């Protein structure tokens, strides 16, 4: 499973990355978490806001910090 956290480096983006990593660790999921800060890369995903979370090429959340329960439900 591949998880990408999109965000140029604002506070909310960093928080999102942290929450995602924690959720993955807690769920013991076999997932690779990448933070994408490059604007060109972010633009390719077609999201209109950051932070955004992409799980296996699917946009799961945009413009908000997801909570852990939400993230865990994507990992299943």
């Amino acid at each position, binding site marked *: 499973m591949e998880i990408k956290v*999109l*965000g*140029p*480096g*604002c*506070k*909310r*983006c960093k928080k999102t990355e942290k929450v995602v990593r924690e959720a993955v660790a807690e769920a013991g999921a076999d997932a690779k978490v990448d933070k994408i800060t490059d*604007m*060109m890369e*972010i*633009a*390719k*995903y*077609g*999201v*209109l*806001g*950051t932070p*955004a979370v992409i799980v296996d090429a*699917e*946009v799961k959340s*945009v*413009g*908000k*910090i997801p909570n852990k329960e939400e993230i865990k439900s994507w990992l299943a």
Partner: protein
Amino acid sequence: MGKESQGNYFFPAKANLMPYLYLSIGLVGFYLWWLVYVRLSSVSSWLTYTLLGMERSSHLGESVWFFLYDSPKVMMLLLLVVFGVGIIRSFFTPEKTRAILSGKGEFFGNILAALLGVVTPFCSCSAVPLFIGFVAAGVPLGVTFSFLIAAPMVNEIALGLLYGLLGWKIAALYMGTGLSVAVIAGWVIGKLHMEKHIEEWVSDVNASENFEYEERLTIHDRVVYGWDAVKEIIGRVWVYVIIGIAVGAAIHGFVPEEFMASVMGRDAWWSVPLATSLGIPMYSNAAGIIPVVEALLGKGAALGTVLAFMMSVIALSLPEMVILRKVLKPRLIGVFIGVVGCGILMVGYLFNIVIQG
């Protein structure tokens, strides 16, 4: 369908009760809020003049009173407004706004974009993906700019604070002129046909790769959304608010009456351009700048000059220019600053001429 989810006559399904539950909690909460709010003035007077024993009409006493009165007042107003608008905003997403705006004609599209800029959730760190997403989906460049100008400038924080601290007339004036600047500046940028001044890589982004992202929210989700907005926004702006109020308090207590009238008054023609250019390198948000504005107005500064200063601080900020530079070539950035700056100057002069005394 299971019995639990359907409910019965005495205990309707949970989902049906939720709106009423939240409505009653909301009303009780608002009543408590009101009880505290109306007592702020007397409590701050008591704290300053009785408990701290400061002398009324002394410089320090006036400053301390202003600070002790304004800080809780601004925070309480922010709490209410940010929560309320957070719930309204949960009905608007950038995705929906883009769908409404794509393919809209120029002038009408600019008006719509400015209005949607007020209610669509936006943070300046999202400006670049939003810009690309809008342009790639066929939203005209000028219409996109109307949105990008209105979104940070005419927002719930500015309106709520202006209403609470300076009254509804100034709040309405600010909203009306802010929207006009966004509409006209966006329209002008559209007319200049500056599409070739967008960085090349933007058009290489494959728009067909766009994902459709749609969320269905329950009342509970919307309340959570509103509360998250409160935590997020107040957590971010409280420092600005306190600094703004401290500056405002110093002006309130120590700057002589009518001093501002000579520097920022209606008769000084250069005060509007000066206020506008001073505002560009300053970076604050609406929450921090409004207590300063309140104090300046109290010392005889002209409304037009102060509005120009405020708009320039919020709408033209260097950090946002640096972010937008990733997608816009220097010339388009220059035009953006120039056109918005001219709009702000016009607002400043207009109010200084129209509003007497």
